[in-house]
């Protein structure tokens, strides 16, 4: 009974309280999700600016609440560990958090178009968000020129994100809810 109630509320965006201690199952699950996000990104590296990370970040945000940030920042840690920390990826510390927070705000929405639009808009704004780092390191003129030069890549990123989320977000969200119902993972 408890399990089925949890599933219904989870599909509508209710998640465990953030101040509860992390269980061993959660630790393993978030580790798996973070590593899977990194592996999926590597597997799709041949497709320029078409990535699964935005989809994964939105999924963990709506499925696991703020605790899903463990998976997100494990992915960020893996990026830093493998590629090193540079101007091009230091923005990962806040860009994924911005998408995560936006997904939390919209967690009760069920229209696939809304999730596609959120992911797509994030892709379009990705360069602008990352340009904040260049604003701090090289001034606003450098940041703006860097951002504008990358707009074609942002357009590709936005279109890719829109399609990926439109097709996969709701089925995977339901799949994660089903997984939690079956295995009682929080």
């Amino acid at each position, binding site marked *: 009974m408890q399990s089925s109630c949890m599933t219904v509320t989870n599909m509508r965006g209710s998640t465990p309280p953030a101040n509860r201690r992390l269980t061993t199952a959660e630790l393993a699950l978030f580790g798996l999700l973070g590593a899977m996000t990194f592996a999926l990104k590597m597997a799709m590296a041949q497709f*320029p600016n078409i990535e699964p990370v935005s989809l994964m970040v939105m999924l963990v945000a709506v499925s696991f609440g703020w605790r899903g940030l463990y998976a997100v920042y494990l992915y960020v840690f893996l990026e830093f560990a493998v590629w090193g920390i540079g101007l091009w990826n230091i923005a990962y510390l806040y860009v994924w958090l911005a998408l995560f927070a936006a997904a939390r705000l919209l967690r009760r*929405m*069920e*229209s*696939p*178009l*809304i999730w*596609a*639009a*959120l992911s*797509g*808009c994030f892709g*379009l*704004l990705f360069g602008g968000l990352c340009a904040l780092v260049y604003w701090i390191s090289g001034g606003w003129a450098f940041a703006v*020129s860097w951002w*504008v*030069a990358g*707009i*074609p*890549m*942002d*357009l590709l990123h*936005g*279109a890719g994100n*829109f399609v990926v989320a439109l097709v996969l977000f709701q089925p995977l969200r339901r799949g994660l809810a089903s997984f939690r119902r079956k295995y009682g993972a929080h």
Partner: protein
Amino acid sequence: MKKKYLYGIAAAALFCLLALGLWHIWQSSLPETAAGEKSVTVTVTHADGTTAEFAYHTDLEYLGDLLQQEGLISGSEGEYGLFVETVDGEPVDYHRDQSWWRLTCNGEDATTGADAVVLHDGDQYAWFYTTG
């Protein structure tokens, strides 16, 4: 119509508007090209310090197109445009010895790749074999 669909359509419209806005910003940022014949010169400074000078008359609009057509440069297309690997028959290999071709336009370092440099009549371009 259900609110769900209305919200979805509104969100998709917002995405399209944002994409169009970005496209417009990018288009506006592109430098204006100059039509008609132009005369430009290109100087190449090789690794051994020798120089070679070339003069061209062209109707093309971009330096990269001109120099590739003339066979002076070659390279590979990357995410950020043409990456020049050979100039006047001399190749560079950044991974081996950090060598690369530096481009200047009228004495100042180019701010874009050669394929995005707009040709103007009387322009002077220079390639320098550079390491580090």
